[in-house]
């Protein structure tokens, strides 16, 4: 026993309502995605805590073309004598387009002897990376690098 034909046929009201609903859904999703993770500039500004950040003294060494985003070697080196009076206190790496902006935060001491850190990271897509360093005297330095990724991490199993 099927319902009468005129009940099943979509009315003008149904079509308009569905279209409005679809538009609403399509509109909401990107907004939600954007608001979930702040921009790279926003996290840099938050880290800087209102003090200036100068491009220089930091080297973020990463291959410009990455074939596998699941394991990307990076090296951060900061120009510093690493003495008790003048050393790097903190090194931070942020990304632009992973699901989460933070990559790693490193704390260094004069016992480090040299301001250099290496690790391996994941990159979801081609994007910009930044390494930021805070010195004992409070000055803050940065290095921005653009990376092309051919195979993305995070999405593949």
């Amino acid at each position: 026993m099927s319902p009468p034909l005129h009940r099943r046929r979509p009315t003008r009201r149904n079509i308009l309502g569905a279209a409005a609903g679809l538009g609403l859904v399509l509109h909401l999703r990107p907004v939600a995605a954007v608001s979930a993770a702040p921009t790279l500039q926003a996290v840099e500004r938050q880290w800087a805590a209102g003090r200036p950040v100068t491009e220089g003294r930091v080297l973020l060494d990463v291959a410009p073309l990455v074939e596998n985003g699941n394991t990307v070697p990076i090296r951060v080196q900061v120009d510093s004598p690493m003495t008790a009076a003048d050393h790097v206190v903190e090194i931070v790496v942020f990304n632009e387009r992973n699901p989460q902006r933070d990559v790693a935060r490193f704390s260094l001491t004069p016992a480090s002897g040299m301001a250099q850190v290496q690790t391996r990271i994941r990159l979801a897509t081609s994007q910009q990376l930044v390494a930021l360093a805070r010195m004992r005297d409070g000055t803050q330095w940065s290095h921005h690098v653009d990376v092309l990724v051919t195979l993305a991490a995070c999405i593949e199993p």
Partner: protein
Amino acid sequence: MADTPSPAPRVRTLIHGLDALRRGQPGELRVTLAHPMENGLRHDGFGNVVPRNIVTRFECKLDGQPVFSADLYTAIAANPYLAFWLRADGPGTLSFEWWGDWGFQHRETRAFTPA
């Protein structure tokens, strides 16, 4: 599962660079921990989200004094590898300690004498 208590899972680590240390000169230590660093974004074959399980913190101390520490996030690749530098003026004991999700904690100590 309840009747047979599973043995504590063996944590595998690699710590390199101690033998090459020279007195008063910076040397590089390379440390790896075997860990999946599950980022909590992947799905298993049945459409369920695999829960996040990452190492969030690493600390290296020389005779109890901090040398280097790291806060790690989901963007760190599986089997987290860290290379950092140490300048030691004499013999000492280094401790390497990791913390992570689900109460993960592991500690290694190494005595060393720089040449």
